[in-house]
């Protein structure tokens, strides 16, 4: 789309997706470069979540092309585990964590290290958890044997983001990451996103209703309207009014 700089990490070209008779995504295209935060905004039902789920592998597109680091993802390969293997992770809005389990368990969700094939390698889990929390500069999580339901929403979301980047992901999809959080916790999470981007060069796809947050975090903003990625703006060239107009009217 805008061909400046290096080759994009991710390109999505003209993807479509229908559910029954409803065409949730009619024409979705965007790209993402290394270390970039791209926001996808749009009204309810505009297709932003569908687009995110196509990228995360949860939905297989009906048509269109997705390339990661120049390699096309075939429709047969299109799955969550394949996208994970390609370095794409998702942080969900409703804190996709297991509340009754500890921080290390949640960090290692789906990747629990084993001892002798059967047992949980708790030592390894704790060590890695401390490393990740340190990297993220999260000092508030101390007791690793507590279930995470005893932590604040911000701490929990930090662990969710920690999980997304702990495994060397290049692209993290943030699906309404602060919708469930208060202002202080929102600020904490936003700081985390910026830190991670600066330190690791991780790219983010931010899905958000919060336009102030979008303008704080995103380098580029993609507007979806009626299932089409209709407009794209750079951060500095957009005003709130302009953005609202694009979202509501598609212009």
């Amino acid at each position, binding site marked *: 789309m805008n061909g400046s700089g290096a080759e994009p990490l991710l390109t999505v070209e003209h993807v479509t997706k229908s559910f029954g008779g409803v065409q949730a995504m009619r024409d979705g295209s965007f790209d993402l470069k290394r270390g970039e935060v791209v926001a996808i905004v749009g009204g309810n039902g505009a297709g932003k979540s569908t687009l995110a789920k196509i990228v995360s592998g*949860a939905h297989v597109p009906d048509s269109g092309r997705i390339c990661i680091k120049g390699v096309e993802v075939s429709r047969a390969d299109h799955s*969550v*585990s394949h996208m*994970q293997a390609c370095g794409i992770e*998702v942080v*969900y809005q409703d804190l*996709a*964590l*297991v*509340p*009754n*389990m500890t921080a290390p*368990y949640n960090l290692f*969700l*789906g990747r*629990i290290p*084993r001892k002798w094939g*059967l*047992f*949980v390698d708790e030592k390894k889990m704790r060590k890695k958890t401390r490393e990740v929390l340190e990297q993220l500069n999260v000092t508030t999580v101390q*007791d690793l044997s*507590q279930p995470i339901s*005893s932590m604040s929403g911000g701490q929990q979301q930090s662990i969710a983001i920690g999980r997304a980047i702990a495994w060397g992901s290049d692209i993290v999809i943030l699906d309404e990451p602060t919708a469930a959080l208060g202002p202080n916790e929102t600020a904490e999470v936003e700081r985390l996103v910026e830190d991670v981007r600066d330190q690791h060069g991780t790219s983010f796809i931010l899905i958000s209703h919060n336009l102030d947050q979008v303008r704080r975090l995103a380098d580029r903003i993609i507007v979806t309207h009626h299932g089409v990625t209709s407009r794209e703006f750079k951060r500095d060239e957009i005003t709130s009014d302009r953005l609202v107009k694009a979202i509501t009217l598609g212009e």
Partner: protein
Amino acid sequence: MSDTATAQPFLTPERVEKLRDYVPFIAIALVILMFWAISGDRFMSVRNWTFIAQQTPVLLLLAFAQLMIVTTGSIDISIGSSLAFSAFLGALGMLWFGDVGLILGILAGGFVGMVNGCIISLLKIPSFVTTLAMLIIVRALVIIMSDGTSIYITADSGASGGNISSVAAPWLLSMGKFPAIFIIAAIVAFGMWVFYEKTVFGQQLRAVGGNEKVLRLVGINVTTFKIKVFAAAGLMVGLAACVNLARAGAATPQAGMMMELDAIAAVALGGTPLTGGYGSVVKTIIGALTLTIVRNGLTIAGVPPSWSQVALGLLLIAAIAISLNRSKIEVVK
């Protein structure tokens, strides 16, 4: 969460929370003291405790099966019928193949569990409904297969017809005696503790009970996992059936009736919430023991069986009322 090193009133909220963890232990201690006070040496005798140690293993194994399932947030009320089915097939197996035929009994339990798991996971029918149907179906199957008669295990070689005798019988009957049955239960209990607390499978039980949706999101196959859980619990029921066969010396069509409720009660008395996500093997052992002791103690104290059932029901409600922090509960279903 917090240090208890503060010089606050003795019962701080944190301490009350911690105390709740110990309710099953306090309850069993109180129950023992109470019956000791009421019945004295008739209760606190080696003979009676031997009896209790004999009574507990079958219930304990069933409670372990239930614990696995309850931890994932499901429930299995078919395990009583499954026990009768497994005992019957175990006995038949011994008739057909001799000693090794007993394995058929264990596998039968695993099979019933697997069928439960498949119906629940693949057809997405709630576990309560599925296992209620299986409770009825499996019990009926046992009655059809057995034609309403029992298979007896006798040590004398002159037995005939549907009765098992000869080589297999004596060791099985000797297994049903006190030390052996207790040792079996102790070994299984230790194995269960390791399995539940230390393995990836055990952790996953809790995680599924905590937030199944998330596990699916990160690519864990919860559908096959649940089938495995029900099958593993079924194998445990099959093992309980074999222990019951050894103890009772017969496979009867009525075996295990209402035992599913005892197993759930034992799990609940052990402080495990039936909503899933949490659980403890040690406390389930305590729960099973408490249930057995109360029943035994009430009998010794001369309470009629029906009234002792009433007492057990009240105990169950009291135990849950105390061990759950109900102030945090907003919705009760």
